[in-house]
């Protein structure tokens, strides 16, 4: 043997021996060849250990060949480019690749957590539920930190992901999932009819496992056929081929999602500016599932030792990469297929024997093996494995079906095992959207039965395991079917083997692993049955069987087999757990796509946005809007700036950009009647040129929006909504008009962005506007509170509403959006001599709270009625019907124990209650305490020189003057006196000034 005994002297269809590639694994430099996977290159270097298991930290090696791999989960890349939990069997190596093993500390070889294995009898199924129940106080400081440290596989990357990701949308007449023998044949058949075909395969090379399949098609090996078919398809203009692309889910109406690893295998691709991953969103008329089948492991004692692999994986390593797991192997099988692995090993000069649990097989391959002089032991199982970080020997025991104990056994030296428990059709995609399945005795597995979508399964995915039948099945999409001359070995029947009896009892040092990734053993599943978890869905959740990142690809059927033997029910009686997307994990980056940073959410800017930027505004998000929170000047902090802005409005005059306020035009002969249905109060009595504050309830009787609506003409209103509610209320009005009161002749037109709108508020507001020579009489008498004028101000066309949300003399001036900045500048200039200053949303909120004005969304939370907030007077008693009226009449919404809006004065005027703080009936040392309400708005009021708050308190209005307690974190209790909600200018004279 050479210096690398695991790399054979020749062979390896996927590797290029002339191109050496060097990468690092756990800090150690390893070299392989171009075309190697991380799995094949690391194994070729002589390392069998790839990771530690999740619960017991047992040493683990490779098991599979592709995406079914459950043990060798690897973190790839460093820092912000690190990606955890990738399967070593799918990672293509390149120079400079940095990979590391996971779930071990301090190193893969010496792992502290492996002690769990020694205590495994204390970690049975459901041990979280059993162990961590008591004492209660241990949860926070002992159990939770322990579980958090122990749980989870791999580590998250650090920092922002520097790579690019994208979403792609595509329509296809036919999508073919899987580019193996079946998929390629089906693609050619479909393409021949001229339709648009999309072919997706998760591997870098098309062909599936054709190269590992026995047989001849028209005189050529199966791989030669698939290679030629792939080349023909690549040349077709109506065929789109995506390799390294896993279809991860199938959804309603043939919507599919596929994950493409664009740049993972080659840094040059990333460097060229291509995205790292793509997420394809596909709509197809027809779906063809050609996903093949996955080989099952066998549950025998310590079947998780490194160098125990699936027979197909061993065959793949030999054939594709010229790598052997060892020099002396045992093939353990219950079917004929694994004999192909024995032939491949023998051909490569590796010593091999076959252990077959069946008493006989009349298949060609078995006869051929015996004829070739391979030691075939029928009616035998592996009953024990020696070695911990590898295999040194096995014990082979005589076996007949149904036998539970080992009677005789003999020891045989070996250094690896290739196992095959049969093949499971990969049903995941078939089942994601409700496909029905049936149990197939021949396969001892499930296969597709029926589906309501336009979808078919073909080939191994359909349980069709022969080459000839697959070729025939794959041509159902063609107009003219081809016939092929196929020669393939005849197969003997498979015999199920769900549990191979062991030396001693399986719970004494031996573990029969079913779910390798989540460390679930046959004993765990049996325990779950004894403890009454009869439903397979309950067993799954109790034992975590099938719940790891591989989603039970290799473990599902074996688990059902064990449950079947433990309960005496048949597998179809037990049923399967639900298959859910994704088929394999895909990256968060691909889910986000390009929708990050500036593209994450569109930002809405008012016409004055640039001005706010230039004047140092601090912004806050209000829905998608960015509103100015405050404008700190030179040396001010935010708090000082807010106080200055508030006092400026109270004493002089302020200017607010209120353009975000929702504006909806309502026009038509029935507009007034419609508004009477929408609002709790009456609008049909509103005179033209007047404004009225309105409350809206939903049909449940709860507050949903509020605002001032203005009658511009007999049949024409403009409704103001909250900034956040504009879109919702607009759609809501449309809904009522279209679906309920279809007789109304009314148009509803959202015009929020058509208008720039500013509040000019404060005692000098009229002086400022007068200076801009309005072309209408602006005097208090001619233009009183709650009225409207249209005209020119400073030469700009305006609608002026004399309404106030601050309690001061106030005008809201609206002008078409494009005039907004000009008018804003004109007002700023005119206001200069009166001390005008811009104010932001925080000042606005304090000003309104000082006056006890509610904000829907602060004082209300979707369970608050107009009566609760003290606005019963605004709920019409005359109108026969409006939205929410009947619900509001329900007794429990009028009952005595509702929370009611009140004001609060804290005992210490310098202390501000925290927003949302709970009021309790009686403060105690520790919970539980009876809660009687919560703070809804709370501020330091510069006008009053003390803190103020509003709160919803049970029976609040009957408790005026009462002192109530607010227990805070850290044991502190704040006291506050219940008061009226109007803190400032109770008589309300200033508004009319």
């Amino acid at each position, binding site marked *: 043997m050479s210096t690398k005994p695991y790399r054979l002297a020749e062979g390896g269809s996927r590797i290029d021996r002339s191109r050496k590639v060097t990468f690092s694994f756990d800090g150690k430099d390893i070299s392989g060849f171009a075309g190697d996977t991380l799995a094949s290159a690391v194994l070729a270097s002589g390392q069998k250990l790839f990771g530690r298991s999740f619960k017991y930290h047992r040493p683990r090696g490779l098991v599979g060949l592709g995406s079914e791999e459950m043990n060798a989960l690897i973190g790839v890349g460093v820092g912000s480019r690190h990606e955890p939990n990738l399967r070593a069997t799918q990672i293509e190596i390149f120079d400079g690749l940095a990979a590391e093993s996971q779930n071990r500390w301090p190193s893969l070889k010496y792992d502290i957590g492996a002690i769990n294995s020694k205590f495994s009898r204390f970690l049975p199924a459901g041990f979280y539920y059993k162990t961590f129940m008591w004492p209660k106080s241990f949860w926070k400081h002992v159990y939770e930190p322990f579980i958090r440290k122990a749980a989870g596989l791999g580590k998250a990357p650090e920092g922002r992901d520097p790579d690019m990701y994208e979403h792609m949308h595509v329509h296809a007449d036919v999508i073919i999932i899987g580019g193996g023998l079946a998929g390629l044949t089906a693609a050619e058949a479909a393409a021949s009819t001229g339709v648009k075909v999309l072919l997706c395969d998760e591997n870098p090379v098309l062909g599936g496992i054709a190269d590992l399949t026995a047989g001849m098609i028209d005189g050529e090996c199966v791989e030669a056929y698939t290679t030629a078919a792939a080349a023909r398809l690549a040349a077709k203009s109506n065929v789109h081929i995506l390799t390294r692309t896993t279809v991860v889910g199938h*959804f*309603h*109406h043939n*919507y599919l999602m596929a994950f493409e690893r664009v740049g993972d295998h080659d840094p040059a691709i990333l460097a060229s500016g291509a995205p790292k991953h793509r997420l394809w969103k596909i*709509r197809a008329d027809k779906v063809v599932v050609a996903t093949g089948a996955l080989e099952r492991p066998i549950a025998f004692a310590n079947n998780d030792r490194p160098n125990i692999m699936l027979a197909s994986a061993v065959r793949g390593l030999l054939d594709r990469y010229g790598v052997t797991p060892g020099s002396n192997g045992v093939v353990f099988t219950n079917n004929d297929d694994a004999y192909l692995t024995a032939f491949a090993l023998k051909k490569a000069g590796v010593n091999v024997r076959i252990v077959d649990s069946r008493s006989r097989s009349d298949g060609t391959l078995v006869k051929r093996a015996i004829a070739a002089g391979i030691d075939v032991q029928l009616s035998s199982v592996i009953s024990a494995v020696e070695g911990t970080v590898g295999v040194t020997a096995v014990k082979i025991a005589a076996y007949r079906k149904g036998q539970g104990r080992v009677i005789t056994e003999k020891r045989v030296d070996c250094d690896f095992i290739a196992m095959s428990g049969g093949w499971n059709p990969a049903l995941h995609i078939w089942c994601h959207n*409700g496909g029905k399945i049936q149990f197939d005795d021949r396969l001892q597995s499930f296969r597709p039965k029926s589906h*309501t979508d336009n979808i078919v399964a073909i080939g191994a995915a359909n349980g069709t395991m022969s080459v000839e039948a697959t070729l025939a099945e794959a041509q159902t999409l063609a107009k003219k079917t081809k016939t092929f001359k196929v020669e393939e070995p005849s197969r003997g029947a498979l015999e199920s083997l769900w549990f191979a009896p062991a030396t001693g009892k399986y719970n004494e040092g031996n573990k029969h692993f079913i779910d390798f990734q989540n460390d679930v053993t046959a004993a765990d599943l049996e325990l779950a049955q004894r403890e009454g978890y009869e439903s397979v869905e309950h067993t799954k959740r109790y034992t975590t069987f099938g719940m790891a990142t591989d989603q039970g690809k290799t473990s599902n059927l074996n688990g059902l087999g064990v449950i079947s033997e433990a309960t005496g029910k048949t597998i179809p009686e037990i049923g399967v757990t639900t298959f859910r997307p994704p088929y394999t994990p895909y990256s968060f980056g691909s889910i986000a796509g390009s929708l990050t940073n500036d593209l994450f959410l569109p930002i809405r800017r008012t016409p004055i946005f640039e001005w706010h930027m230039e004047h140092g505004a601090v912004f806050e998000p209000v829905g998608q809007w960015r509103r100015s929170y405050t404008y700190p000047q030179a040396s001010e902090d935010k708090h000082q700036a807010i106080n200055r802005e508030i006092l400026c409005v109270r004493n002089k005059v302020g200017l607010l950009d209120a353009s975000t306020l929702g504006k909806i035009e309502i026009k038509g002969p029935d507009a007034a009647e419609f508004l009477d249905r929408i609002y709790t109060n009456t609008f049909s009595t509103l005179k033209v040129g007047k404004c009225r504050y309105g409350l809206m309830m939903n*049909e*449940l009787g709860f507050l949903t929006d509020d605002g001032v609506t203005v009658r511009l003409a007999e049949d024409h209103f403009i409704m103001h909504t909250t900034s956040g509610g504009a879109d919702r209320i607009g*759609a809501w009005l*449309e*809904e009522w008009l*279209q*679906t*309920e*009161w*279809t007789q109304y002749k009314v148009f509803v037109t959202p015009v929020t962005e058509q208008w720039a709108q500013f509040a000019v508020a404060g005692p000098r507001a009229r002086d400022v506007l007068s200076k801009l020579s309005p072309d209408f009489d602006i005097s208090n008498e001619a233009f009183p509170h709650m009225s409207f004028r249209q005209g020119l101000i400073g030469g700009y066309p305006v609608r002026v509403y004399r309404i106030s949300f601050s309690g001061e003399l106030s005008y809201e001036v609206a002008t078409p959006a494009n005039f907004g900045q000009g008018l804003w500048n004109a007002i700023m200039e005119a206001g200069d001599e009166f001390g005008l200053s811009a104010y932001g949303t925080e000042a606005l909120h304090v000003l309104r709270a000082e006056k006890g004005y509610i904000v829907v969304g602060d004082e209300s939370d979707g369970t608050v009625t107009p009566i609760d907030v003290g606005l019963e007077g605004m709920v019409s008693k005359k109108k*026969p*019907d409006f939205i929410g*009226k*009947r*619900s509001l009449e*329900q007794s429990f919404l009028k009952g005595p124990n509702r929370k009611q809006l009140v004001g609060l004065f804290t005992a210490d005027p310098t202390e501000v209650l925290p927003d949302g703080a709970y009021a309790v009936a009686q403060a105690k040392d520790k919970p539980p305490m009876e809660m009687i309400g919560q703070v809804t708005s709370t501020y330091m009021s510069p006008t009053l020189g003390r803190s103020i708050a509003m709160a919803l308190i049970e029976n609040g209005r009957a408790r005026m003057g009462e002192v109530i307690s607010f227990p805070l974190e850290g044991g502190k209790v704040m006291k506050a006196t219940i008061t009226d909600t109007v803190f400032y200018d109770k008589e309300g004279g200033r508004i009319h000034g």
Partner: protein
Amino acid sequence: MLVVTCPICNASGDETDFHYGGQAHVRRPATADPLNITDEEQRDYLFIRHNPKGLHFERWRCDRGCGKWFHAARDTVTMEFKATYGITELPPVELMKEAKGPWADYFKMRMKEKA
């Protein structure tokens, strides 16, 4: 992800281009007679909905198209849209006949009203 086609403007799109509006043909008692609604009638109007396995009748809005509301008959098992029809209309007669359970009762009542 369903594909929905608007019967008003003929636009076809993913369900995210539309807005699902819950069960169709829910009658608002207050529109007919606002002064005589029992608590039970109001409860049924607000909260009681059918949940059939099979043929169901729903409201949808063409959100990113014409903005109009419409009705749809959809099979909740196969997800097939059997028909779409106007927001003030009843479903095609053959679908009313096909409907089961509470839907069958409802349509019988509506047909009787018509007659």
